[in-house]
């Protein structure tokens, strides 16, 4: 499990269904700010399954990472809650 301060990448997948990982953050790298949960997987809850418990990581991204040259100020930040199964180590290919 990634720890606070670990660099992670959000999986760059576009599966169908009820997904709580915003599309604009998929494929982007950030740093774990804190870990919460476990919470039941909302992708399963949405279809009336019980929902496997998952860690929920708050990940901090820089505007430069998310928007590139279009960022207003590159060092401003965005934080979002990303479920564990959407994250991979940032050094993964």
């Amino acid at each position, binding site marked *: 499990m990634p720890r606070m301060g670990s660099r992670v990448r959000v999986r760059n997948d576009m599966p169908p269904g009820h997904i709580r990982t*915003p599309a*604009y*953050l998929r494929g982007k790298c950030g740093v774990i700010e804190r870990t*919460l949960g476990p919470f039941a997987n909302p992708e399963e809850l949405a279809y009336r399954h019980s929902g496997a418990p998952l860690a929920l990581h708050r990940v901090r991204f820089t505007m430069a990472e*998310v*928007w590139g040259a279009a960022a207003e100020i590159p060092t401003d930040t*965005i934080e979002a809650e990303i*479920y564990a199964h959407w994250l991979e180590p940032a050094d993964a290919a």
Partner: protein
Amino acid sequence: MPHDHHNHLSPSGHPFRADNDHPLSYWQTMEIAVRELLIEKGVTTAAEIARQIDAMDNRTPANGAAVVARAWTDPDFRAALQHDASVATSEMGFDIGPMKLIAVENTADLHNIVVCTLCSCYPRNLLGLPPDWYKSRAYRSRTVREPRRVLAEFGVTLPETTQIRVHDSTADMRYVVIPARPDGTDGWSTDDLAHLVTRDSMVGTGLPKSPDALA
């Protein structure tokens, strides 16, 4: 002739709003059907539904303002709020139910702003129902992309040296911003301080009122 609307303008000079007598939409019909069935089958009662609507309407940003003012004056409470905002605010009587709350503090170097890009998650236990703009596609899509332009439209311009941190409320957490305590309020009571705390200052789209506002 107060009921003669032939010029389609009210006495204040605005056009009269069209009567809301179009047919029910599919979802409105379904909501009524489900509600009536739940009452008919004894799952709930009309009185219970009315009480719940009352409870929702009675939550206002005054709840959040009381929390912020206490955080400004009570260091132990402020620490408890940072440690676990759900517990700290529940103990003040503002139960958040199954959701979890995170309080994020503004400083001279950091300004927090909250958005829910996926829907309209909002700390209703502290702020009541969200304003229409919070649920609009424009606010939800632009705040993560150009927060400084959005803030400027709310009348807030911050120096580049103040980092802006956007919180996208994507899952189980709700966020409330604890704005920085205004200068010139030394010795103020918690009740007086609460009058400076606006709804927008707790969403991050605004700043607290200046102490001169209450003079």
